[in-house]
């Protein structure tokens, strides 16, 4: 059987005085899907990085097929048949999908016969549940498509053990079902074993055979999924005596107020010289969360970028409280518009600046933080410290470079900046990508609280569960337009899925992109 049996025996790893892994003994049975749960910083990534040779464990051993095996480098792991899909993207952004796949496959011939290679890649892709344009560049792909490319890269190597770090965080439920279903099928047929880090209980119960929970570097429970329940797992993750954070109930306090944000006929150019947003109309009222659902790559990214001013608009009007809105700094301030962009380190921060400086970006030149052209750094630092405390940002201090923080903590820092004071309009994209259970609940709670305070929230998310949980109204975006809308309480998952899949398209609708 090609599937590999992985065991770790009392694996420990220290970073200075910090114990990231404490005597973890994990058992991944061959031909199974094993889910690894835990909060941010629980040691999941450290554990798998020890297995793939990225880190060397300080104590303990890794057993492959029952034999103790030293894995000093990722190359060794690859030779052993262990593939890893990382949470951050490791594709080459400026090279085509075909080139990326060829490089990942290794054994690149000195002279490449592209005709043969392409035929081979097409044939390979036909055996997987994914379709990607071989000539597209990751630079132009949405994060969901990039994630698929990452997984394809690993499948191409025919791994005996596939490790995935949150593989579905950017996929639609349908896509996630497809991906996980395909992976489980592979595992059960004995082709490979799968170890996946996840935060979603739904995926654990639907697709995993076994589940292990890490907390503060220790393995707190491990066993068959059949013997566990989401409640038990949540308890194990959060620890004894700690109650899971209460999500604010989805009670619509009052009917939504007047229309605040009005978008008419918005058209935006994409990266590949074709229109990504083609005449989009949308209204958002005060005290309302409008969720934008859609398969990634249908113009959501360009739409949000155009709204927050990262991308020029071709045509159409955007008005806020009846006034034209161009997302200039002064307008953002006077109309109280805030945004939580996706990939906040890239879109909402200056990586080389400190946490305090990043938290100050909106207001460093405003009273009371500036006086006669001078910035009052001490006031800003003091406020940053307060926010770090309030939002639980894990950092070495307010002076640390923000890019040294983990993804969840960058997200919290941006959240602190954007939710401070009262916002009238929040533009939010995939706010919980890659965050753990507790952080997700906390961020969702804050969005709902903002809504209850009368704020208008436009929420773009590739996670349908998140949209169903938070939104008052859900619209579906497909081919650069809003094709469907419904009050969230009437929304049917399969109906939304059908609209997202673009099956509704009439003759006048834009042509589908050739696969």
């Amino acid at each position, binding site marked *: 059987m090609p599937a590999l049996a992985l065991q770790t025996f009392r694996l420990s790893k220290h970073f200075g005085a910090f114990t990231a892994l404490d005597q973890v003994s994990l058992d991944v049975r061959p031909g199974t899907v094993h889910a690894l749960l835990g909060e941010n910083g629980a040691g999941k990534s450290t554990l798998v990085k020890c297995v793939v040779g990225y880190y060397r464990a300080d104590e303990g051993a890794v057993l492959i097929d029952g034999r103790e095996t030293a894995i000093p480098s990722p190359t060794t792991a690859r030779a052993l048949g262990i593939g890893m899909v990382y949470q951050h993207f*490791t594709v*080459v952004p400026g090279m085509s999908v075909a*080139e990326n796949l060829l490089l990942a496959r290794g054994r*690149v011939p*000195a002279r490449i016969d592209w005709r043969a290679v392409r035929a081979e890649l097409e044939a390979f892709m036909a055996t997987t549940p994914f379709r990607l344009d071989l000539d597209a560049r990751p*630079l132009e792909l949405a994060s969901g498509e990039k994630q698929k490319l990452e997984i394809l890269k690993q499948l191409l190597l025919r791994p005996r053990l596939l490790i995935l770090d949150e593989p579905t965080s950017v996929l639609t439920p349908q896509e996630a079902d497809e991906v996980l279903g395909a992976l489980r099928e592979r595992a059960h047929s004995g082709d490979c074993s799968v170890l996946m880090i996840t935060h979603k209980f739904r995926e654990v119960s639907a697709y995993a055979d076994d589940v292990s929970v890490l907390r503060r570097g220790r393995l707190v429970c491990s066993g068959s999924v059949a013997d566990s329940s989401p409640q038990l797992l949540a308890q194990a993750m959060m620890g004894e005596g700690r109650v899971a954070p209460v999500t604010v109930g989805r009670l619509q306090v009052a009917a939504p107020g007047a229309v605040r944000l009005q978008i008419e006929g918005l058209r935006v150019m994409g990266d590949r*010289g074709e229109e990504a947003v083609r005449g989009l109309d949308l209204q958002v009222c005060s005290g309302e969360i409008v969720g934008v659902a859609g398969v990634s790559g249908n113009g959501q990214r360009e739409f949000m970028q155009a709204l927050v001013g990262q991308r*020029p608009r071709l045509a159409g009007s955007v008005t806020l409280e009846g006034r034209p809105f161009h997302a200039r700094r002064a307008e953002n301030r006077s109309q109280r518009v805030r945004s939580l962009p996706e990939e906040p380190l890239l879109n909402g921060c200056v990586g080389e600046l400190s946490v305090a400086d990043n938290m100050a970006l909106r207001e460093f030149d405003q009273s009371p933080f500036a006086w006669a052209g001078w910035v009052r750094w001490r006031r800003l630092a003091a406020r940053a410290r307060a926010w770090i405390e309030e939002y639980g940002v894990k950092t070495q201090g307010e002076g640390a470079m923000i890019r040294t923080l983990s993804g969840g903590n960058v997200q919290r820092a941006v959240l602190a900046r954007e939710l401070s004071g009262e916002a009238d309009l929040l533009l939010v994209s995939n706010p919980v990508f890659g965050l753990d259970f507790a952080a997700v609940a906390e961020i969702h709670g804050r969005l709902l609280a903002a809504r209850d305070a009368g704020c208008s929230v436009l929420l773009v998310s590739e996670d349908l569960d998140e949209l169903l949980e938070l939104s008052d109204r859900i619209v579906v975006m497909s081919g650069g337009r809003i094709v469907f809308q419904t009050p969230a309480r009437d929304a049917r998952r399969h109906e939304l899925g059908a609209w997202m899949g673009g099956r509704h398209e009439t003759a006048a609708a834009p042509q589908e992109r050739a696969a």
Partner: protein
Amino acid sequence: MSAQAWLDVLIAVIGGAVRVGTPFLFVSLGECLTEKAGRINLGLEGVLVLSAMSGFGAAWLSDSVWIGVLCAGLAGAALALVHGVACSLPRVNDVAVGIGIMLLGTGLAFHLGKPLMEPQAPQIPSLALGGWSNSAAVQAALRINVLFPLGVALAALLQWGFANTRWGLLVRMVGDSADAARALGTSVNGVRIAATVAGGFIAGLGGASLSLYYPGSWNEGLSSGQGLIAVALVIFARWSPLRCLAAALLFGGAGAIGPALQSVGVGGAYYLFNALPYALTLLILVLSCSPTRSARGAPLELGVSR
């Protein structure tokens, strides 16, 4: 001015495009290769001057022009190696190192080249492509440096190689995402040093073309910033070797306008015309940058495309 005079100017400009453009071509191809791997080598100006001196010296001493050409390439590669290795040290900025290499290269060349001002060295042979015409002007214009066809072939080879060979993919991967390259177990610094050295060798051939063909002697004013302009050429050519060829010819032609006009008696604005290539550099860079079009082919590890 008669129609014949205009025709002479045109022919002279075409001939000049090749003659003056050949060094541009080699330097920009060298820079293109270096930048594709994610490094900027501003030191190519120093590489050009040092290799011109070395090539001239070696050709004079050995009395063989081809030994001279080879030595020019090797001198360029050696100086580029210094750049490549220095930039591989942690927290070293390639632009700053490049300026250092530029000054080092020219300084070394001026020092070592003192005794080379007087002598005559054998010259790179030329191909007479103007035999079909009985006009002396046409024949003179179409007498072409044999390095030029070599450069054209090299441009085509690089263009093809970037897309169709293992080395091409590795160089582009390293230039696009060092992280991805490391994840695949590729030595980022190794590939970058190799590309920089190969780029230095290619640029060195441009130096040989300067001192052994046109103008064909060694003096301190041999290169007037051609190595630096090549950096701009590469950006203008959007990191495509074949477009580097077109850009080099364009600049060569622009550089030949002044002398060509003077030869038919229009000399009033001689210095102004000589400034034409530089004005053209600015103009083209302004025109070719666009906020909406993403720079396809631009290596993402380069500061310029971020």
